[in-house]
């Protein structure tokens, strides 16, 4: 049975925790708004890039000289998973669900006899995956999603990926990230980024084939790394927005739970106090009776 003093201390500490979680919730809410704006602003470029790529791919005849980023290596032996998580915790199941999906993918791919490599973006994912798959992590990048996501960091990642691809370190790359659906829901998404899979690849070519300047292949050679960078950039932005959303709802829950806890503790405290007073009274009365 905790003493009155203990209960009082508990209540005080839960109260200050509640203050912290309430403040974190508000910080996350304002960061979320900014992150959403950034994600929104990047969308026009991404959709237009996709459209242009569709036009290019729709007219493409795969040949020897077709860039391998779109044609693939012809193999599917080594799979690279790019796992995007946050750098900081206290955001509910945000990182946990990504890591769970990554583990599932790794197990599945290994059952199929493929070799799996991991590239971790974000400190949390790296820390969680290092326990079981330390040997598979070939690179870890962090401090990307903390502040405003810069396009240059996505570009750097894309350059690294292209260099690794050209060096034959992997055949297929998948991006595992949280897609921002709404403030309370982030959807774990797995997307193939290398080789590129344009939506319109199977469709018939557009009515008028455009001219190319310089030729189609050199344009593709330039646009494909660019496209990769923008895909990563969008994923990073979505993930950053999702992180703030997840943190906001986690902190909202925490604040509410702390309130419940304070109510329970206060009730407990009052009860013990009452019991204590009653006990003292009985002692006094029975003492007086004995005299």
């Amino acid at each position: 049975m905790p003493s009155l003093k203990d209960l009082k201390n508990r209540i005080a500490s839960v109260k200050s925790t509640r203050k912290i979680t309430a403040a974190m919730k508000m910080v996350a809410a304002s960061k979320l708004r900014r992150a959403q704006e950034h994600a929104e602003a990047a969308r026009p470029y991404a959709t237009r890039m996709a459209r242009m790529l569709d036009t290019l791919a729709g007219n493409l005849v795969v040949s020897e000289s077709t860039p391998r980023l779109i044609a693939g290596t012809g193999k599917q032996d080594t799979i690279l998973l790019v796992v995007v998580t946050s750098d900081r915790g206290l955001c509910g199941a945000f990182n946990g669900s990504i890591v769970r999906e990554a583990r599932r993918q790794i197990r599945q791919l290994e059952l199929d006899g493929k070799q799996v490599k991991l590239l971790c973006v974000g400190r949390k994912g790296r820390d969680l995956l290092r326990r079981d798959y330390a040997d598979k992590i070939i690179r870890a990048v962090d401090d990307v999603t903390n502040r405003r996501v810069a396009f240059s960091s996505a570009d750097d990642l894309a350059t690294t990926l292209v260099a690794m691809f050209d060096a034959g370190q992997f055949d297929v790359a998948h991006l595992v990230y949280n897609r921002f659906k709404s403030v309370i829901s982030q959807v774990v998404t797995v997307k193939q980024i290398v080789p590129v899979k344009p939506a319109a690849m199977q469709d018939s070519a557009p009515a008028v084939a455009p001219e190319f300047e310089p030729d189609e292949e050199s344009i593709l050679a330039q646009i494909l790394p660019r496209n990769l960078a923008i895909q990563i950039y969008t994923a990073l932005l979505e993930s950053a927005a999702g992180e703030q959303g997840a943190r906001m709802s986690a902190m909202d829950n925490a604040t509410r739970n702390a309130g419940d806890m304070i109510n329970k503790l206060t009730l407990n405290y009052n009860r013990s106090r009452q019991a204590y007073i009653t006990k003292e009274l009985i002692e006094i009365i029975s003492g007086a009776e004995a005299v």
Partner: protein
Amino acid sequence: MKKFSLELVSPEKLLLNKDVTMVTVPGSEGDYGVMAGHTPIITTLRPGVIEVYEADDHTVSDHFFVAGGFAEVTNERCTLLAEDAVPVAKLDRAQLSDEAKALRDDLADPAFGGRADSEAKLVIVQAKLEALGA
């Protein structure tokens, strides 16, 4: 004059989306002008200035500097995917000269490591200066 829709986007945001009469684009194999009904073409861009002619085909209404990117022209629109696009009015000559000087100093040093990177940057800075001179 017949107009067509022009979109200028950079990875960070949509800079321009309106109907214009003509636009000149710095293609990697030479500048070219686009008017409504241009034949479909896809090109890469070199560092240079995009000139937008909004109302008619002889008054420039906007200048934008682009460091590179892609242009897609179809019958009804022109899409410019630019890297690092800025309005020419926002370029600062003094700051750019300093940058160019710093880069040249770096390149003059034979032990300097990031040579290819700096050379690419220098080309862009010089193109920016040229854009201001024009």
